[in-house]
């Protein structure tokens, strides 16, 4: 500690030690914060239609379009170290061969931000069940300068007749008449520091397993069992939907007058 340079090195060295130790403590503190997640999922409507993976494809596949209700209380997943929770709804159904594990496909997902996360346009904004107004696009909302607000506290969801974000198909291309399908809720808690954690079904310490979280088993109907109206097959774009994805359609540009 005799000269400035040595003191600078010593202080910085111990600073990194302290920072790492505090970060470790914060990461561990997540595991002593009690969790009591619960979710109720029920099927609203399921339709199977023929379609193609993209416009120029000659392949014909069967697509399932699943609407659901979700009542979930995941507020205990949000402790001081939670940055965001990635929430997703899976359709789980047995594979065609018994030796293979069940197939899983995500039909809906959302990024639930914690209060400590800075605002981002990709964050999920819970639809207001009381609002009779038509849903505004992000652009319109930005123009009106009204910040979107969730009607429920963070981590609480009450979705009714929720449209899927993704229509799903199977690797075989056939989905009609498949039985024993369940909807299952999954999540990935992303902390500020520490380990990522996924859905836990069993009790671990002060973390209770997810209560509910699975719908009753149902079957995919026959292809075109109901005359499908285009409106019934609409999917919902998440707030991240404005992003351009390689190979996807480009958004319509306003006609230049």
């Amino acid at each position, binding site marked *: 500690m005799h*000269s400035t340079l040595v*003191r600078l090195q*010593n*202080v910085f060295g*111990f600073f990194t030690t302290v920072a790492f130790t*505090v970060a470790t*403590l914060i990461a561990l503190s997540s595991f002593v914060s009690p969790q009591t997640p619960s979710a109720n999922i029920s099927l609203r409507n399921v339709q199977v239609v023929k379609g193609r993976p993209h416009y120029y494809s000659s392949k014909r596949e069967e697509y399932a379009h699943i609407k659901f209700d979700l009542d979930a209380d995941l507020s205990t997943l949000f402790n001081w170290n939670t940055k965001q929770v990635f929430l997703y709804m899976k359709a789980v159904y047995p594979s065609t061969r018994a030796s293979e594990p069940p197939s899983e496909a995500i039909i809906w997902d959302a990024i639930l931000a914690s209060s400590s996360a800075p605002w981002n346009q990709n964050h999920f904004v819970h639809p207001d069940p009381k609002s009779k107004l038509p849903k505004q696009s992000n652009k319109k909302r930005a123009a009106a300068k009204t910040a979107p607000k969730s009607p429920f506290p963070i981590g609480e969801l009450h979705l009714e007749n929720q449209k899927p974000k993704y229509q799903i198909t199977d690797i075989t291309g056939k989905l009609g008449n498949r039985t024993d399908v369940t909807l299952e809720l999954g999540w990935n808690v992303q902390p500020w520091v520490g380990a990522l954690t996924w859905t836990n079904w069993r009790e671990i310490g002060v973390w209770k397993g997810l209560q509910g979280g699975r719908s009753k088993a149902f079957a995919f109907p026959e292809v075109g069992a109901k005359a499908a109206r285009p409106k019934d097959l609409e999917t919902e774009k998440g707030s991240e939907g404005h992003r351009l994805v390689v190979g996807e359609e480009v958004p319509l540009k306003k006609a230049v007058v």
Partner: protein
Amino acid sequence: MADQLLEQVRDAVEGQIDFEGQRLAEMLSTVLLGAAGILAFLVGYMMQDIKLALYIGLAGSALTFVVVVPPWPFYNKNPEDWLPPHNAASQYNIDVDGQKVG
């Protein structure tokens, strides 16, 4: 004149402190950084606010750097004096081949 100035600059950059000052600097850096870390975690956990923890930790570290790194006068309160100059011949008797050399 230029040599003197250069000497002063070198002293300021090197920032040497005395032995007691070194002991004090070592102690201060350990205590201040440790306290900042503990305080950051406790206050952040109490308030359930991770950004507060971050800022307390960073502020404490910045304070430690300011207190410990520059050669403040209170690190130089016990300067160690040079030994008094002495005549080597009066203390040592070195004989080489019967001839006194030191």
